[in-house]
Every structure is written in C-alpha cells, then in structure tokens.
C-alpha cells in the first residue's frame, strides 16, 4: 500500500512533527515502502488468535501500597526545563 503526501501530512500532524518541504517526498517514499513491507502480515490467518500484548504468559499487574514516598524536588527536576517561572513550566499561551 502506498501513502500519499496528504496521508503523511496527517500522520506528521498527529505526531506533532514538523517535516520540511525537502524531507516530505523522502518520507512519502519511505513510509510507503514500510507500509507495503508490513502489509505481508495480512497474509497470515489469525482468525481465532488472541492478540499478545506482553511477552510473558500469566504475569499480572502488581499493586503497590498507597504510601507517599516522595518529597518536593521540583527545583532539581526543573533544571532540565527550557522555561520555568514561579515553579510553573511555561508554554506558549494555551487557547481553549
């Protein structure tokens, strides 16, 4: 299956990736090839097969006791942030 430029633009938007004009034809070509390649999956008969989300059988979610184990470390954590003010992370204005 081949993807159109429009398809790739939509995917890039959903994934919030800026793709330049120069890169666009390359991605259209690459992604089309990848999708054609994985299309082979549809040759297998999987009618009665349960999908497998985890590689180990029989493992179940462990539940953690409800106990606080953290102290305020926001200054340390915010050292990696580009813009911070008054303890808040800053982003361009959110418009609803």
């Amino acid at each position, binding site marked *: 299956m081949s993807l159109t430029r429009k398809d790739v633009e939509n995917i890039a938007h959903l994934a919030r990736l800026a793709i330049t004009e120069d890169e666009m034809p390359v991605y259209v070509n690459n992604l089309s090839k990848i999708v054609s390649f994985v299309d082979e999956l549809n040759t297998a008969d999987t009618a009665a097969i349960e*999908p497998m989300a985890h590689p180990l059988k029989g*493992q179940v979610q462990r539940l953690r006791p409800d106990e606080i184990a953290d102290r305020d470390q926001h200054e340390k954590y915010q050292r990696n942030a580009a813009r911070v003010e008054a303890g808040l992370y800053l982003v361009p204005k959110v418009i609803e």
Partner: protein
Amino acid sequence: MTELHHQTLAELAAGLRARRFSSVELARHFLARIERSNPELNALVTVTADQALAAAARADERIASGSAGPLTGLPIVHKDIFCTDGVLTTCGSRMLSNFVAPYDATVVERLSQAGVITLGKANMDEFAMGSSNETSWYGPVKNPWDLKKVPGGSSGGSAAAVAARIAPAATGTDTGGSIRQPAALTSLTGIKPTYGRVSRYGMIAFASSLDQAGTLTLTAEDSAMLLGAMAGFDPRDSTSVDAPVPDYVATLDQPLAGLRIGLLKEFFEKGLDEANGKLVRDALKVFEAMGAKLVEVSLPNLPLSVPTYYVVAPAECSSNLSRFDGVRFGYRCENPVNLIDLYKRSRGEGFGAEVKRRIMTGTYVLSAGYYDAYYLQAQKIRRLIADDFEAAFKEVDVLMGPTSPTTAFDIGAKVDDPITMYLNDIYTIGANLAGLPAMSIPCGFLGGLPVGLQVIGPHFAEGKLLNVAHRYQQETQWHKEIPANYK
C-alpha cells in the same frame, strides 16, 4: 603481567583481589585508552573521568578494608540510554543533548552498589532505533575491526568500546537485536536476558514490550558476573519478574553431553550468506564434539517476525516518545509562535530521520481505520511466533543459528534504504517478540570481520545459555581475537 586491557572482567577482578593493581590504576589505564582511541571510534558520548577516579578510590578502600564484592572496582561503560544521576544522558539524540538525568536507572544503581565504576556513556543509535549506529546525533560509531565499517546497532558504542578494549565490558539494550547484532559484528559476547529479568526503570523506552537490558563482554563468564548483579525484581517496573536470580557463574562449567540443540530451519534458508552459514555450522560441530545432539526444528511463523516487529515497535515508540515535547526537558525550538509550533518544531528538529520515520509508522498503524489491519494483526502474529518457540522448546534445550545475515557493512551503505536496514534484524527479532533470552558469541571471521553464533533459550534459561557459551569458549579461541590496532 598481561596487559590490563587484554584481561577479562573475571581476570581483572582476580587481579584487584590479589592487589596486583588498584582500581584507580585500572580506571586510569582505560581512561588513557579512551582518550587515545575514542576520537577515531566515536564510541563514547560522555567520559566521566573524575567521577570514575573518585569511585575507583572508594572501591580501593573497600578492597583494602575487606568489604569488597566480586565486582568492586571493575570499570565499565553504560549505553547512553540508561539514566545516570547528574550526568548527561543523551540516548544518542539531539532531543536529549542537554538532558542531565536527575536519577539513576535501576541497572546503574545496582551495578554502582556492587562497586562497578562507570567510565562513561556509550554512543548508540538514536533512541536505540537502528542496526548500524549511524542514526546517532553524535555521529556514526566505527567498527574497531575496520573503521570504514559499522559496529552494528543500536548498542554500537558499547560494542566498539569493548571490542577496542577501551572498556572491559559494557551494558546495552536489545529491542530487536541491539545487543546481539553489534556483539556479532565486533566479536563479542552479548546477552539479552528474558523480558522482565532486568528492570527497565531508568532505561529510556523505545518499545516497552520488547526492550530488555543486557551486557556486551569479552566472555560468557564476564556476562554471567555482570548479569547476576543487574538482574532481579524491581518494584518500580510493573513488568519486572519477581523471581530469584540464580548464580549464573556457578553453572558455567556444567557439561553439555546430551544437550539438544535445535537448528532453526528458517534461519538457514533466508538471506544467509553462504560463508557465514558455514562458520555457524562449524560452531555446531564443536557442540556435537562435546556430546550435544542437533535437531532440525521449524518455526513456520518466524518469517513474519520482521514485519510484525516493524509494526509493534514503532507503535509503542510513537507513544513512548510523545513525552519529548520541549516543555519539561529536552530540546526546545527557538521562538515558538504558538503551542503547536513549539511541539512540531521541537520534535521535528530534535528527532532524527529514522526516529521520525518510526514515530510516523507507529502513528499510522495505530490510527483509526488501520489499527485492526496492522497493530492488532501484528499482536496476533506475535502470539503465533511465541507459540512456535514454545513448541520448539518442548523438543530442544536451546536453539542455534546465525546472529546476523552478513558481517559488518560499510558505513553509509544501507542508510537510505530502511527496509534493507530492517532486514539486518531478521534472526534476532524473534527472541524479542517472544521475550526469550538470547546470546551472540563469536564463532569465526570472514575477510577479517567477525561472525556471531546466536543461542536462544526458553524463558529464564539465561543460566543455560551462559553455560553453553562458556563451554564453547573453553573449546575455541575466537573470543580472544583483538582488532589489530587496539592490541
């Protein structure tokens, strides 16, 4: 005395205990080798010389006071996918080129507690996405066996560092072959344990249901030593398995008489270089001589493992990498005009081409209208493949075959063709899909380039794999070869 960098971890550990040299001397020796060779290899992104020497001095005190453990004072490098508190952790990406992790990954923490010294952080394919170490923001890593060749990926920096003896061992991660394939291409012993055996906490996620940490070392014995310290239950990782860790070193010498080795029919059929195949068959003869029996087995769904992987892994990665948005950490574009511009440009500029390709592939296969045909179908085939392995392990103890279809290829040769690149993982991906432990061990050379033998076991059979590999290494010398320029 044998040159320090010619010694295995086990030998170095013995030397430290016998006070033939100190941990500080050991660290200095390797730091000097790093300084000399890293510029041409590009194996390490960060060298933590000061911290390493300070930790080595502490290790020497522990050794002197008699409170040292078996790993105390041994230096290694960590793949730069593991978070290291207070140290740059880049994941090979521009996105994290300014990221100083505020905490240690469980693997790092456990090895540090065991007294292991971190020399630096190893280069890698960006976010572990690649099979050649060419996708790193920090540039390609060179193969010490031939600087024009790739070292494999994604743990290419780890592999090149150990192969060039600028570090005696390294950690790595393996999502689709990222430990085993570089181990094969650089003549090292690489192990990817069972999914859930080693905690993923602090290991920057690529594909959560496939990622697993392991080691790249000179010998199986070294792998056994390191893995024993890394493995085990971690309450911070929900997928970590709560089961005791056996003493992997204690079982290394068990005899192999009666071992049933399954030869994967599918592995010897498709895309395997003939000369490469011959070396693998020669290796099998060594096992036969030790009393093992060869049985041909077929995993009919295995040929679908590459397309299955290239749906599952991108799907998970597309979601895992959404957290990189330029707000709380990581690269942020200059002067965003609005929120969407902040997201799109920070991510567009911060991620490289292969990462973007996989994020987009993953976004596509999860999107409305395609989920059933791709993602769900891949999860079903994943089960078929896992069931094939399970059936095979009713007949045999381990499976063997090649690790990689070819020896190391030229830097730049496959970089423009994603599908050709993806097919490098054809023999390794199955173990990740099924969560099985798997190793690659050196089994010869073709035109001066290393070839690896892959050994796959049932869940939690790391001990058996290491035993098999160790016995083979008692009979062969391949793992002792050192690249000419790094002797």
